[in-house]
């Protein structure tokens, strides 16, 4: 089942995405953010909270005088390490308790600092590699079933109820569990600490919660003989920190988009571009598959109209990911089944879009999101829309398949809803398993024409973006009709230009691990 598509147009789109992203990467290379710096500390081993429950990575980065930020946190922290002989965790506690300040060690030579950091950097890189190897070992011993991989969310707000729900879902057949975050966590400029039981529409992403869920899933993986993947969100103001926590806790996937925060969360674009880059280098190295957020174009605006924007965003996300050293096999580009159920031949459009994405990104583990916007209180109708989504997914060989819930318009999923959703997907994907292999599209018919239209409109859109530059394009509302000023939005105050002596030991280590050129 192949669409005849204009491969020259695809080629031109990719080239334009490169042209769009290249100048942004230059910008990124010259800047850093507080979140990147906190992430450096976390990777070194800093964790826990200090005064007023402030996470120590925040406390320490914030303790750095603003004029010193441009050099990065690593050198000042390294100086303290060298001088105190403490390990990073102990040093952080000491700083949190006021027993030391970074300023004390200003005179320690950089070389000593680098030397003191080196073993901890190596240890972190080793730990990441170990966790990755552990995933590989488990996956080869207890492999997942064939894709589409059934993915469900848990979102009770309480990590222990979530655990119950996750285990039940795995028993029913889920292969990927995502713990939805509490509303608003993406706008917090810190990562909460410890196990949590009170979230709102979701459960806080904390390292303790990651551990609790990872442990439960490893246990049920062994029992069920299939590796179950764990997903969370490296989105919002703490992208790199969550990416580092996820690396250490062996999460397998992270929601991570190069523009989602800008467009849909009003996070400053510079902050986002810098943060996504560092987080993606980490994800690349940890073997974590990212999930991009193109589905959001479709839920907030008309899905038929937004299809070209989705494709354009996929090209851009792909390019950003490549530049962070990420191979195609880790780039879970997003798409969604969001065309109104009332549209005649809407199913044909969905098939066209899903197949187009499949062919343009043949090696990407595509993430296919279920119908949400047009789901209503009519759970019976909703279950049917989900069924055609499931059919489209198996026909077009999507990889990561978010199971749609018949109660999508009503509440975050009940345990029983998840079971029905998985039943739905399993029934459809089994009874129509090879349907996609057994049909061809009529040349020049409605499906091919739609795919061709989407591609050519995407090309036009990318041409506009190339001309303006990405930042300017976002400023003028090219994406999702949302306009965001380059220096507006949340988290802009956490962005800073690097000095000549800026140092981030993990940047070099990660670039090296990914086979990327060194910066500058």
């Amino acid at each position, binding site marked *: 089942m192949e669409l005849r598509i204009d491969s020259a147009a695809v080629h031109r789109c990719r080239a334009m995405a490169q042209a769009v992203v290249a100048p942004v990467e230059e910008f990124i290379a010259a800047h850093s953010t507080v979140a990147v710096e906190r992430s450096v500390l976390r990777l070194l081993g800093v964790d826990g909270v200090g005064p007023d429950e402030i996470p120590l990575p925040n406390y320490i980065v914030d303790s750095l005088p603003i004029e010193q930020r441009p050099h990065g946190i690593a050198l000042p922290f390294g100086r303290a390490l060298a001088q105190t002989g403490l390990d990073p965790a102990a040093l952080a506690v000491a700083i949190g308790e006021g027993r030391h300040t970074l300023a004390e060690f200003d005179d320690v030579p950089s070389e000593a600092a680098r030397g003191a950091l080196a073993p901890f950097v190596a240890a972190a890189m080793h730990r990441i590699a170990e966790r990755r190897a552990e995933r590989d070992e488990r996956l080869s011993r207890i492999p997942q079933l064939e894709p589409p991989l059934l993915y469900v969310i848990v979102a009770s707000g309480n990590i222990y*109820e979530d655990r119950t729900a996750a285990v039940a879902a795995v028993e029913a057949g889920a292969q990927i569990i995502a713990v939805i975050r509490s509303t608003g966590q993406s706008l917090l400029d810190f990562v909460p600490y410890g196990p949590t039981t009170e979230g709102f529409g979701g459960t806080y992403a904390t390292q303790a919660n990651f551990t609790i869920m990872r442990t439960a899933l490893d246990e049920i993986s062994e029992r069920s003989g299939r590796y179950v993947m764990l997903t969370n969100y490296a989105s919002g103001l703490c992208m790199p920190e969550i990416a580092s926590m996820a690396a250490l806790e062996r999460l397998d996937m992270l929601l991570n988009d190069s523009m989602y925060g800008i467009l849909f969360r009003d996070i400053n674009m510079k902050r986002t571009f810098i943060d996504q880059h560092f987080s993606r280098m980490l994800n690349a190295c940890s073997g974590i598959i990212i999930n991009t957020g193109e589905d959001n174009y479709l839920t907030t605006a008309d899905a038929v109209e937004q299809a070209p924007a989705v494709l354009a965003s996929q090209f851009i996300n792909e390019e950003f990911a490549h530049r962070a050293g990420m191979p195609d096999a880790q780039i879970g580009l997003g798409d969604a089944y969001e065309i109104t159920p009332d549209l005649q031949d809407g199913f044909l459009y969905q098939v066209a879009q899903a197949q187009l994405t499949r062919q343009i990104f043949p090696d990407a583990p595509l993430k296919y999101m279920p119908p949400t916007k047009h789901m209503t209180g009519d759970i019976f109708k909703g279950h049917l829309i989900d069924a055609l989504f499931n059919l489209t997914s198996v026909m077009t060989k999507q990889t990561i398949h978010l199971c749609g819930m018949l109660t999508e318009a009503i509440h975050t999923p*009940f*345990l029983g809803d998840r079971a029905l959703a998985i039943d739905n997907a399993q029934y459809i994907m089994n009874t129509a398993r090879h349907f996609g292999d057994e049909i061809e599209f009529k040349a020049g018919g409605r499906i091919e024409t739609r795919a061709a239209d989407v591609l050519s409109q995407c090309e036009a859109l990318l041409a506009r973006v190339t001309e303006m530059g990405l930042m300017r394009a976002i400023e003028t509302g090219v994406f999702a009709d949302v306009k965001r000023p380059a220096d507006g939005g949340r988290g802009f105050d956490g962005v800073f230009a690097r000095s000549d002596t800026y140092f981030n030991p993990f940047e070099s280590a990660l670039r090296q691990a990914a086979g990327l050129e060194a910066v500058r």
Partner: protein
Amino acid sequence: MSDQIVKPYGDTMNDGRVQMSFTLPISWSEAADEAARQLVAKMGFEEVQVVEGRAIASGFSFFVVYASTPHGIDAAAIKAPSAKAHAMSMDDVDAFVRERIGRKVRVAGACIGTDAHTVGIDAILNMKGYKGDYGLERYGMFETMNLGSQIAVEEFVRIARDRELDALLASQVVTQKGSDIKNFTALAELLEAEGLREKVVLICGGPRVTNLMASELGYDAGFGRGTLPSEVAAFIATSMEKRGLR
């Protein structure tokens, strides 16, 4: 509330969440949604959410509701033993009968009353069986008769006497207006009246049958949806042995 008491589970223990749908014979309007809400509240539910309400015809509206029930049940205290307790293969059952009964067991099955749904009882009796589990006709130690459909209870009892049956298998699929209960009861009573009840294993089955209901109707066992032939064969053999029917 004792911790044995369980309530419906939405996403949190004891939240009591239940999904409902129904039609009301009224035209749709916002007031109809409110009527549905009040009706469900009258049924004793709390936190009633009418999540869908719409006209499905003039004078009829359809509703989907989520609500919480304050009721719970002590599930652990419920006694409803399954007739499927003894798991035995065809060979096990044949060996068991050979050793413990010492002769072939005579079994007949029928759709009684006006019921013509033979697929279920055929699944139990026919050679071919059901879901890969062979039917009673294939058992070496069973002599099996399939009387087919629409067998009057009088006829069934006559055959039981004439053929000296050891086990009677009665099927009812149609349940409208309680016809299944009526027919099952009539069969049990007639066997009693004819003095045959003690001599046979009396079994009923059908998609709405439960073992509990069967025992309330005076049957030895009842088998519901998804029954496999070997489960029935095992019950017949072990129960004959237990009751000393040789």
